[in-house]
């Protein structure tokens, strides 16, 4: 791979890791949803970096099409997750998932 493509591919993996850590480690629902989004962005970034073939050549259009599909599906999943989180908080007043909380 080209140096800049490698750079963005590794950055994608790092973003995936950041998002994964936030998704598991933080109890607040909104943080978890943001973490999920950043995980997705990391996957997209690795995809687009692999599709990159230098400034002279046209990049691979197949991963690009998949990523565009992915971005729109991701926003749908986010909307659904946020609707669920809002329902949870309006019905119970809980905004965080703390495992040791006894009700």
């Amino acid at each position: 791979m080209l140096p800049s493509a490698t750079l963005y591919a590794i950055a994608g993996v790092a973003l995936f890791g950041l998002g994964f850590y936030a998704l598991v480690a933080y109890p607040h629902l909104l943080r978890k949803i943001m973490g999920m989004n950043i995980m997705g962005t990391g996957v997209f970034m690795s995809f687009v970096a692999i599709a990159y073939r230098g400034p002279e050549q046209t990049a691979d259009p197949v991963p690009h099409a998949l990523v565009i599909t992915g971005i729109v599906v991701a926003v749908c999943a986010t909307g659904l997750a946020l609707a669920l989180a809002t329902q949870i908080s309006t019905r119970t007043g809980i905004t965080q998932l703390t495992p040791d909380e006894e009700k």
Partner: protein
Amino acid sequence: MAKPDRGDDVTLNRGRGLVLGLTVALVGGLSAALLTLPANTPRLAETALSRTPESEVLNPVTAVLLNFRGYDTLLEVAVLLLAIIAIWSMARQARVWIKLPDTPVLATFVRLVLPLMVIVGGYLLWLGADLPGGAFQGGAVLGGLGVLWVAAAVWLPPAWFRRLLRPALVIGLLAFLLVAVAVMFPGGLLLAYPPEQAKNLILLVESAAVISIGVTLTLLFIGGIPTRGDA
């Protein structure tokens, strides 16, 4: 309770050392996999780029999205509809379109920007055949228009407009399915557009999809079945 969210929600769950270790292992493994990726493997790129002219569009991404991988996009449009059905089946009626006090700056801004956004969305759709753009980008602009309309609440939509919401939500999937099935009848396969009709069919599907995508994104923002706040 002026600051319900501050402070207490940055506390981490127990076992964060384990999570950190897992994350480091994950990142390390994935990086190693990426770095050892074999170079110069045969790709779909050459096939996709060389056969783009068969779609009668110049933008290879549009050719892949709407023609070569049309199946993915068809299912994606279905996912958009499913998301709205899922939200509507659980959320109570969302009261939107409450008439706000008519501030001249907001009203003028929205009046100027909304028609412009319709033009930009349509232009992106038309442009998508040959240059970067397309149904998703155009639909995203229309979705932004919808969000701005709902959030600014400068005008209330008339009753006939609200009756059009549900048809507009499904028109993208319906048109896509109809085209996908219709091309089977001259003896073709599902979604296999005849090359001489490809561009017209792509534009037909995209024009229907752009409406559905815009409406879907707006309804995601509303987060429930929209009802008039003043009713």
